[in-house]
């Protein structure tokens, strides 16, 4: 158990973060290279002002027409993404482990709150799964990998929840939690999860086109 724990909480963390970081960098560079190769003219109307306007506009719940038309989806997706990012960053146990390794620490949220936020993420994954299965317009753009990445995202939160409450076999779920978190980090750059880094650029491109070319708002 010690060898396994030392391995998954040591070298494997380095591998996961390295793949995540350089993979995301690769995706960004490849995106810019592809634009440069295929639709270079896009650069001519990219506007900082309209990019930021669009990113901001689409970052506020119910600010856009699309969000108002899908209120349930809007609430779930904002709650999901907020908890998905904030929970692991400000979870007490994570902050403590970081402090142990780097002697550097920041604030943490109460454990009762992060417990609920974890459930929000799991519920969100479940909601997205039902949505993919039920809505024809979503079903149409769904492939097998979309179901797999829902599982990849849910796994660290489900195992983390079980480990926190020490239900069933604690060491087993703790190790599984660490491994599933690392799998998620590794898969981000190479799946649709890459929207984590690519989405702002899609938004910036659309914002620039609607603002600078069509002279319209970007709904």
């Amino acid at each position, binding site marked *: 158990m*010690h060898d396994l724990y030392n391995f998954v909480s040591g070298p494997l963390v380095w591998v996961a973060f390295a793949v995540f970081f350089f993979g995301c960098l690769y995706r960004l560079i490849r995106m810019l290279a592809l634009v440069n190769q295929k639709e270079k003219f896009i650069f001519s109307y990219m506007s900082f002002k309209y990019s930021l306007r669009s990113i901001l506009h689409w970052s506020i719940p119910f600010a856009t027409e699309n969000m108002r038309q899908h209120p349930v989806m809007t609430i779930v997706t904002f709650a999901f993404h907020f908890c998905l990012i904030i929970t692991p960053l400000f979870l007490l146990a994570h902050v403590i482990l970081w402090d*142990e390794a780097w002697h550097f620490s920041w604030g943490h949220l109460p*454990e009762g709150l992060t417990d609920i936020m974890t459930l929000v993420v799991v519920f969100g994954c479940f909601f997205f799964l039902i949505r993919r299965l039920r809505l024809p317009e979503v079903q149409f753009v769904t492939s097998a990998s979309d179901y797999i990445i829902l599982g990849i995202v849910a796994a660290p939160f489900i195992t983390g929840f079980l480990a926190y409450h020490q239900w069933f076999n*604690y060491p087993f779920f703790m190790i599984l939690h660490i491994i599933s978190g690392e799998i998620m980090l590794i898969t981000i750059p190479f799946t649709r999860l890459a929207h984590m880094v690519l989405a702002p650029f899609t938004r910036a491109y659309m914002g620039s086109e609607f603002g600078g070319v069509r002279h319209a708002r970007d709904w």
Partner: protein
Amino acid sequence: MYNRIIKFLGLILVFVLMWVPAHSQDEMTAIDNDMFLKPQRPVSVFQHDEHNETAEIEDCAQCHHLYEDGQLVEGESSEDMRCADCHEEKGIGKTPSLTQAFHLNCKMCHQEKKSGPVMCGECHVK
């Protein structure tokens, strides 16, 4: 009559013999955490004597170390002090916080020896 008194005294003796070790001062069963005003986790299980027997620790300074001006004082130990006398709620300079002091002292040794609890919930048992 005598028989009954002897039986009664014998019962008391058995009770005292069982009760004293269970409550004696030396038998430490958990980490001293009353420094923490609002502990987030259940107090760490720690059977002091049993631990040192199993781990074959003879030298008190192995855990009860003494630092002066950031330097480890060899041959000196600090079992007459509380951890919280040096390690405060927040770390100061190179002195780790009390939480960190507990975690580093226990966990690092367990990882090195590949024995004993290393994951959060193995000490902070719910």
